[in-house]
């Protein structure tokens, strides 16, 4: 409990500092920009239009797209100036949040200034104000309430959106929301949402108070609030600078994707490393799946667990039918080790691949044993699947090789698939083979005779920095080679998904069993 509170506290702080820095920079950009376009009518529509377009991009997509953009910029900067920067983590999150904060502030600055009584502008000119004096003595003061409203809107938006910074590698309250949703730990999800909402309400209220005290000329309150902000920002920048310039080089960073198995494996790795080596470990949970390989390649994370089929299809971008299990594994290993100087530290021993699954009852009633058998029912059955399967190579291969389709294909959150097939809402699901719920709901995995689905051997990848400069790491992690059977992994996932255990407890269960083995 104490540890959980500590984690919540640190996520709360990350969330707060990320949002506040984004808001500060956003305000510093958009207020001058807004003032400028107020006096440049021909640019006004263009700038407001552009910031409006940014606003229409869904928050998650805006955050995610920052990563490849920054990656490209970083490569370019490395080629030209020999300077690389991080394309995951705080930087992309900050950029996206800054962009998101622009519109409300910009728009309100422009409307605020445009809405000023013309008589006051005429009076300001007539008494002999220079354009600058007019701006500071009249325009800005008159537009202030509307501009304030813009900053307050931006505050609420940014604090809310910051929960989506998790998948790009910036810790935020989104971490517990994402992992809580995956592991069905709803109190955790609730805690994350409440904390983010409280933050938003608090800062919105504080801004409201600031505005009110300004309107009422209550300088004491005004100074108090400004002083609070000054202290808060000083601390954030001081701590930020310290983290940047005095980076803890002994820290090992583990990245995980956003599902239960990955969280458990992350915790297992953390415990082993911290017990057996002098290194400290940070886990970056719930990172975007496409991000991890690049992050590892750029030494932004040190370790992550991936699957051979994922590398083969999404990183190597191979198309067509997969080669045999052995050939694919050696191709993938060669690719990561020779082409990218990474290291396959261990193959954990189980596969987590896509598989069509049905309840045993329905399968035997319909006489279905393999994917091939589905073609007799093509068009009668309903498929439940995750967000990505239908766009992946697996589905393309299956359709081509087996010539099957479904009456309806329902996309749903992966955590809901198993229950839906169990409750007959769908007939077939695209299960993950290591999921504990296959066993719980007594599902039948349909045979893939024609080998349309590539093998998904679980592999532990190490960054170049990690295996060259931390030899102890490789030595310890090698012990995990072939240490987790499919059944073991299913059981561990089951513990978390269905028994309400934490991922850490599952990890400890595994490790205590591992020690008992000879």
């Amino acid at each position: 409990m104490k540890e959980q509170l500590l984690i919540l506290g640190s996520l709360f702080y990350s969330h707060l500092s990320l949002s506040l820095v984004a808001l500060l920079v956003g305000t510093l950009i958009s207020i001058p920009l807004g003032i400028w376009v107020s006096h440049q009518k021909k640019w006004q529509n263009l700038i407001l239009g552009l910031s409006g377009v940014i606003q229409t991009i869904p928050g998650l997509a805006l955050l995610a797209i920052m990563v490849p953009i920054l990656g490209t910029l970083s490569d370019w900067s490395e080629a030209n100036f020999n300077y690389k920067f991080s394309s995951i983590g705080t930087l992309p999150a900050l950029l996206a949040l800054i962009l998101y904060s622009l519109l409300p502030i910009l728009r309100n600055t422009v409307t605020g200034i445009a809405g000023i009584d013309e008589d006051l502008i005429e009076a300001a000119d007539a008494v002999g104000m220079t354009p600058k004096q007019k701006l500071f003595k009249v325009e800005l003061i008159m537009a202030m309430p509307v501009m304030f409203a813009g900053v307050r809107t931006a505050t609420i938006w940014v604090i809310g959106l910051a929960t989506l910074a998790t998948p790009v590698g910036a810790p935020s309250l989104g971490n517990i929301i994402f992992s809580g949703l995956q592991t069905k730990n709803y109190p955790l999800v609730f805690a994350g949402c409440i904390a983010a909402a409280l933050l938003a309400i608090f800062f919105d209220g504080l801004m409201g108070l600031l505005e009110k005290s300004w309107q009422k000329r209550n300088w004491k309150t005004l100074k108090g609030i400004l002083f609070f902000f000054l202290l808060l920002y000083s601390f954030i920048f001081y701590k930020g600078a310290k983290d940047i310039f005095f980076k803890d080089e002994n820290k090992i960073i583990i990245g995980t994707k956003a599902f239960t198995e990955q969280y458990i494996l992350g915790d297992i790795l953390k415990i082993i490393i911290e017990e057996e080596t002098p290194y400290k470990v940070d886990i970056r949970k719930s990172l975007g799946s496409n991000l991890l390989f690049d992050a590892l390649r750029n030494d932004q994370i040190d370790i992550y667990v991936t699957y051979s089929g994922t590398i083969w299809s999404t990183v190597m971008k191979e198309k067509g039918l997969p080669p045999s299990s052995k050939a694919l594994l050696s191709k993938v290993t060669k690719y990561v080790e020779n082409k990218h100087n990474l290291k396959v530290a261990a193959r954990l021993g189980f596969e987590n691949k896509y598989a069509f699954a049905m309840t045993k009852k329905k399968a035997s009633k319909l006489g279905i044993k393999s994917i091939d058998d589905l073609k007799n029912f093509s068009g009668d059955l309903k498929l439940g699947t995750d967000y990505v399967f239908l766009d992946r190579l697996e589905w393309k291969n299956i359709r081509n090789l087996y010539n099957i389709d479904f009456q309806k294909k329902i996309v749903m959150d992966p955590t809901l698939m198993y229950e839906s097939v169990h409750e007959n809402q769908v007939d077939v699901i695209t299960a993950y083979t290591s999921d504990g719920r296959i066993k719980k709901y007594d599902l039948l995995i349909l045979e893939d005779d024609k080998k349309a689905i590539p093998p998904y051997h679980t592999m532990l990848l190490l960054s170049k920095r990690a295996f060259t400069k931390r030899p102890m790491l490789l030595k310890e992690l090698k012990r995990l080679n072939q240490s987790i059977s499919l059944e073991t992994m299913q059981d561990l996932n089951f513990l978390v998904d269905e028994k309400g255990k934490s991922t850490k407890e599952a990890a400890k269960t595994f490790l205590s069993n591992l020690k008992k083995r000879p």
Partner: protein
Amino acid sequence: MIELKNITKAYGGIKVVNSIDLTIPEGELLVLLGESGCGKTTTLKMINRLIQPSSGEVKIDGRNNTDMPPYELRREIGYCFQKIGLFPHMTVADNIAITLQLLNWERSKKKERVIELLELTELDPKVFYHRYPKELSGGQAQRVAVARALSARPKVILFDEPFGKLDPLNRSHLQKEIIKIKEKVSFTGVFVTHDMMEALLLGTRIAIMKEGSLIQIDTPKNIFNSPKDDYVASLIRAPKEQMKQLEATLQGRNG
């Protein structure tokens, strides 16, 4: 002295002010009179460059009004307009002293001047000094605006229908006050109005404009007695007829 030399303002080919020549000697209060849209306000605003003329030039005491930046010019010219335009976030005192502040007057001198001006415009400094514009009546606000126009002791003051929105009683008070102020403080003034009575009452001379051109310029007496054409005559006739009608009505009632 203010000189307008062959001054024209055109918007998209339409001349709203058409080659006007006008000389206003020092100390005179010239009234620009005409119906709305005749170009009188445009003419006025070209003097302090709130509007740029399309051609022609304006000289004040022999200096071209484009010789200095517009804001410096305007600090030397008082301006008082119908919409009043007091800054709502400043006190009465700060509003009156705004030009003085722009000219970097000392604090004590500013305060002294503000009190002097409040007294001149018959506003009790003890009551009004710290008030905000929203706490003033229309007449009080316009007095503050007059005080603001007078603050930096300008040699030239421009009035753009300053009393147009006031009720008759307040209007007549303020008209009398302008006459009183004019006796105490020396300035050259241009006063725009469409009200012939106001023009006759205030003007040293009256310049009558129609469709952008100057029709007649003369003393109130001469305009009243010998209007140049039918248009001017019709402008004079209105107040005359009103007076007669009023007299007749009142007599009829008494009888």
